[in-house]
């Protein structure tokens, strides 16, 4: 890890820290609710939660400029929300409602809000890395100063698209930050069992002429600082970074998976490193009052409750919507 938590925390102002705290709780409570709604049968299909991994989304979300771009995976609720996409639209999308961000056509795995720079949640492992590189190339061509941040899991480091994207981004010096959320597991198989190196992303940075970076992905301050550095580096024309953020999912891979294939010791160790209580204590130590923190937590809960209501009361999509948006004319007609 590049630095310890207390070192790095000092460089961050209080407002930012409170914003990080707010985000952690919004994400945590959203994911807890999403899980409940899945178990209740209101979220259909599948859903992949970031419970335990919120610090990465929070830290990057806070560091990104409003017009920066985000590419994430099927485990994308947190990354979508952290860019300021309204909770209502995200929750409604999970429930397949017309007021969802994708009108119910995307679902949990494909959250997108172009308006907020969330350019999509991709469900094929690794596919979005070259796409993110392309968005960064576009920013470079347009001189927009936008930086693209691309999130993916440890498992994605063994697929070909990872390799191709990293090389291209490096050779073309693209303004993109690749963030590997290493939660030690793919679906039900440990990344360590199928990977030739210990740090599946960082230990490969050298293959792309990049620096080896491993950070504590459960420390919101560490994430925020590294995110800020890498984004500025990219914005100033320094090219891509590859960051491996160590973290852990509290629950299973998806749906109702209890995640019991993982050793209890490992689970316990990581539960003890839950970013939320850890960060709460840090803020208390820094003199933030208990009641301020509680207010933030309550507000987050209230937002989630409201979003849940808005989603539950949202209209179902018109059935005709199934036949729209295939082509630019709005429809799906392939013939005259």
């Amino acid at each position, binding site marked *: 890890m590049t630095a310890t938590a207390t070192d790095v925390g000092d460089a961050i102002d209080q407002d930012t820290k409170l914003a990080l705290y707010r985000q952690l709780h919004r994400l945590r409570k959203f994911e807890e609710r999403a899980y409940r709604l899945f178990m209740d049968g209101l979220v259909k299909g599948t859903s992949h939660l970031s419970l335990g991994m919120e610090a990465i989304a929070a830290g990057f979300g806070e560091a990104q400029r409003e017009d920066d771009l985000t590419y994430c995976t099927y485990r994308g609720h947190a990354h979508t929300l952290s860019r300021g996409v309204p909770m209502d639209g995200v929750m409604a999308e999970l429930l*397949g409602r017309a007021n969802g961000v994708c009108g119910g*056509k995307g*679902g949990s*795995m494909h959250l997108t809000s172009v308006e907020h720079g969330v350019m999509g949640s991709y*469900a094929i492992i690794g596919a979005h890395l070259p796409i993110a590189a392309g968005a960064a190339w576009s920013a470079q061509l347009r001189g927009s100063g936008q930086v693209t941040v691309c999130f993916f899991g440890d498992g994605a480091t*063994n697929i070909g698209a990872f390799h191709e994207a990293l090389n291209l981004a490096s050779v073309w010096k693209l303004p993109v930050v690749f963030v590997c959320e290493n939660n030690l597991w793919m679906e*039900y*198989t440990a990344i360590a069992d199928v990977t030739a190196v210990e740090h599946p992303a960082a230990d490969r940075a050298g293959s792309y002429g990049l620096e080896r970076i491993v950070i504590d992905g459960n420390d919101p301050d560490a994430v925020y600082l590294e995110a800020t550095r890498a984004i500025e580096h990219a914005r100033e024309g320094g090219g891509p970074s590859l960051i491996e953020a160590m973290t852990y999912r509290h629950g299973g891979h998806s749906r109702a998976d209890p995640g019991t294939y993982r050793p209890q010791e490992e689970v316990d160790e990581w539960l003890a490193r839950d970013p939320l209580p850890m960060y709460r204590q840090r803020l208390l130590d820094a003199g933030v009052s208990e009641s301020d923190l509680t207010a933030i937590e309550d507000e987050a809960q209230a937002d989630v409750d409201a979003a849940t209501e808005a989603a539950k009361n949202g209209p179902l999509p018109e059935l005709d919507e*199934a036949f729209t948006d295939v082509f630019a004319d709005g429809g*799906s007609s392939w013939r005259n």
Partner: protein
Amino acid sequence: MAELITYRDAVARAIAQEMRRDERVVFLGEDIAAAGGVFKTTKGLLDEFGPVRVRDTPISEEAIIGGAMGAAMTGMRPIAEIMFSDFLATCWDLVAVEIAKSRYMTAGQVEVPLVIRTANGGGLRFGAQHSQAVENWAMMIPGLKVVAPSNPADLIGLFAAAVRDDDPVMFFEQKSLYPTKGEVPDGEIVDELGKAKIVREGDDITLVALASMVPRAVDAAERLQEERGISAEVVDLRSLVPMDTQTVLRSVTKTTRLATVEENPRLCGWGAEVVSIVSDEAFWDLDAPLTRITTPHVPLPSADALEDVTLPSVDRVVETVAKVVG
């Protein structure tokens, strides 16, 4: 004796049957060993056959399929799982350009006896990237055999035939069928590729269906009989390559009408090929336009209500057939 088992459990039983029989059969894929598969189709195989023959892989579809090919051409008979058939796109070069063509390019020197099994199709609200029915992708490629069973007994028998076949076989399990049950005889089951089954006899129209569309076609046929007095014959095609065109042609010659019931999206679906065969070879026997009932040419939506209006439904089959016959 026979037993009622799920299509899901039939998978592990089929794999075990073949692994017991032939040492050369090995099995690789993502989360297939310790976890027993994300669809729980491969439970128990690691325990019975051990980690040398049942092996978890990295998320590296090209390595999985390339690895299976290399093993197949050097004396093994691998079974490779591609978790969702959508992911075939990430290793399509290995499937379509390497595996399919090697025998031909080498004038028969190279043999690639492997099975790629995969969870295919929609109905589970997984959205556009985890729901595609891509059996027509495989059918397009010279050199591949393509199988898609509709029930547990066929699954086991056709799987055994696939493993024993000296050609590469794409084996499509329809994921919405996993919880469905069917009678399965005791003991070893070995079926034959390239034999369609008439699963319901009828006189007025032939419905050709595959995998999950077979039960829907049968339900539709029952309703057509009851509600409209139309007698539909249902053919379960079972394998697209080799294709049992004789059974289809005989049936159409008798009924004089044809509709295909396809889960793949419209353009260049397997039904187009069936129609093109029938409209050429049974042309003079036909009494009605040839009709295809398919998923429309759209990516699949996630929301349940939307997904339900895309996949061919029993209602849609009934309505369409009634018009054709009517």
